[in-house]
């Protein structure tokens, strides 16, 4: 990777204003749409995985348009590791909570004692909680995968 990589300064085109400006405008709307895809997974095609990948794509676009250091400034490594763990813990924790509260594993209607919503409404809420957990996990894993593969594990320059 080292020998044929040219530094940004002596790249022919150099950091291009057009790319950076357009990305700076686009990235917030990509993330907004990604949150919509996660939240709207009940009513339209979407859900945790698709929304999580879109969220990850926003940071990957930042890493490609600017450089990896900027995307790591907006999404620090510690937060990335913590989010990956919490995403999966949300899912597994919901399952264990349903079992501890007297129901079966992953039976969302058993969460009734927490907040009286009625079993069917709790199932719909349970699905949403789980989708959020999946979205968090997929986002942080996708971004961490890209960072590692792009920079060969050194997390310094990236592509």
């Amino acid at each position: 990777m080292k020998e044929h990589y040219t530094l940004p300064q002596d790249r022919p085109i150099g950091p291009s204003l057009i790319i950076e400006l357009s990305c700076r405008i686009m990235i917030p709307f990509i993330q907004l749409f990604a949150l919509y895809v996660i939240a709207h997974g009940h009513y339209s095609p979407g859900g945790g995985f698709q929304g999580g990948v879109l969220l990850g794509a926003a940071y990957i676009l930042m890493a490609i348009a600017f450089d990896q250091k900027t995307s790591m400034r907006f999404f620090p490594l510690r937060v990335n590791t913590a989010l990956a763990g919490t995403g999966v813990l949300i899912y597994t924790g919901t399952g264990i909570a349903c079992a501890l509260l007297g129901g079966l594993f992953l039976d969302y209607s058993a969460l009734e004692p927490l907040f009286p919503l009625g079993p069917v409404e709790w199932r719909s809420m349970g699905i949403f909680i789980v989708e959020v957990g999946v979205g968090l996990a997929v986002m942080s894993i996708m971004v961490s995968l890209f960072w590692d593969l792009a920079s060969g594990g050194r997390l310094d320059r990236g592509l």
Partner: protein
Amino acid sequence: MKKRALLSTLFTGALLLYGTGDFPPWGDPNAPAARHVSPLYIEKSVEDTHVPNIVTAVLADYRGYDTMFETIVIFCAGVVVVSALRRPDA
């Protein structure tokens, strides 16, 4: 090596095609797959979970156990890539 690989590929392909002989024609509404388990998903899922998107309802509720392990699969991929590539010493 290539000869053996080509031979086993052709044999596997022939076995697969021999197996498709008994399948219902494509898109047949009363194929076994469309008659046995999925009708309940279509008819009951909105009533049971108030979620119009049947795929999300089946994914997260009826077969939520699968999706939990799926999240763990992608988590494992993250851990493996981090442990394989991030070499502070090398």
